[in-house]
């Protein structure tokens, strides 16, 4: 009944989900999981604190993406940043490009202010939909960065070619910049232009890092187990190929 050529993919996904599920269960039962420090996340407190000292706003954008996984990771961090902004009374400006992402982002910010006990601090005009056009979005964001002279610019989510435009504009005004994306073609531009870069997969660890949330810590342990399994698979596969057997490759192509 499985669709041809997707048999292995299905079982691989099944195994991934099972590993993550079991790890979350174990963590909830009290298994200790330590997370290694991620400099980009540690810098977020400093970035918001600096804005508070300077009396200037913080800017956050989840990027150009629709509702894709990196955007989810960005929104998770946004919830935390909003909490900090509410605590320190810092103005937080959020810019969004895609309508469906906007619908969710606005809700996340609204809810985070509510949770922080300051629902009145939420201002719709500071959570802005710019345009779904890539370059209009870029020009709108650099306009905001340059005019509002933000103290800290945080960009975590899905980014395309506009990444460097945003990062250079942030650099021009001397903002502390923290950026993260999984797109390997855009990470280089964040690496050269930002102060802190959250590399690829690290961005999915936000919940575990900030809230030390058991679900997230467990999920992270599950991800690590999957990575270990992938490494094992690659090594065994390569050794088999060296020995002249492509059995594993054939199984994976099923």
């Amino acid at each position: 009944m499985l669709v041809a050529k997707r048999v292995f993919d299905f079982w691989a996904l099944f195994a991934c989900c099972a590993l993550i599920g079991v790890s979350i269960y174990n963590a909830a039962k009290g298994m200790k999981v330590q997370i290694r420090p991620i400099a980009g996340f540690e810098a977020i407190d400093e970035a918001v604190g600096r804005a508070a000292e300077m009396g200037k706003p913080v800017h956050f954008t989840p990027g150009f993406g629709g509702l894709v996984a990196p955007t989810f990771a960005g929104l998770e961090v946004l919830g935390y940043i909003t909490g900090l902004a509410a605590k320190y009374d810092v103005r937080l400006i959020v810019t969004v490009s895609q309508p469906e992402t906007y619908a969710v982002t606005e809700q996340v910010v609204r809810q985070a202010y509510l949770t922080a006990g300051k629902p009145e601090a939420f201002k719709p005009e500071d959570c802005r939909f710019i345009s779904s056009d890539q370059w209009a979005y870029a020009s709108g964001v650099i306009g905001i960065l340059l005019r509002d002279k933000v103290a800290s610019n945080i960009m975590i989510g899905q980014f395309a070619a506009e990444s460097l435009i945003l990062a250079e504009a942030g650099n021009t005004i001397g903002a502390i910049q923290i950026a993260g994306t999984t797109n390997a073609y855009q990470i280089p531009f964040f690496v050269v232009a930002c102060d802190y870069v959250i590399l690829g997969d690290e961005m999915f660890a936000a919940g575990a890092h900030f809230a030390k949330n058991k679900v997230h810590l467990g999920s992270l342990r599950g991800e690590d187990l999957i990575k270990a399994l992938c490494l094992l698979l690659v090594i065994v596969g390569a050794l088999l190929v060296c020995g002249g057997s492509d059995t594993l490759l054939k199984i994976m192509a099923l």
Partner: protein
Amino acid sequence: MRISTDIGAWVGALSALAIYSVLYKENPVYRLVENIFVGASAGIAVVVGVQTFQSTAWVPMAKGNTWLVVPMVLGVLLYARYTPSVSYLNRIPLSFLLGTSAGVAMRGAIESQIVGQLSATMINLNSFDALVIFLGTVTSLAYFFLTYRFSGRAAVVSMWGRYFMMAAFGAAFGNTVMGRVSAAIGRFQFIFLKWLGM
């Protein structure tokens, strides 16, 4: 030099110059062009959106696909957020959007990004090049262990992982320059050749 009399050439060239002025300093001219551009592009998005709505929802529903009432109701519920007493209803369409998006993300990730990439790495390690690809993949993947910390000798693995990633980032950076410069050449040709007629 023969300056163009075509209004399109004038609008295009002047807007490009206004945009380039931001390289010197943020200024009123840039700000005006930016706002016109953002307004126009958001307007275009709305026009396209209405057209999509007509062709994917309104017309099929008029032709008898009554099920399409469901997404329309969901869509309307998004606006519940503006009325505090019923704002929680807004969670229903959001959970619908997020649930489907998560499903799509999950199935795409496993196939092309994990299984495809892993099988491409299972190569015969009989050449220097093959070894470089293999070691690069293994060490950079190992860098991403987030709940284990490599210490002592094992730390070398994640260090090499970072080195390989930096090499890849440098390469991607250098390789992108050409496309970006091409874009600028296009604008410059427009300004000097089409508009100023040089």
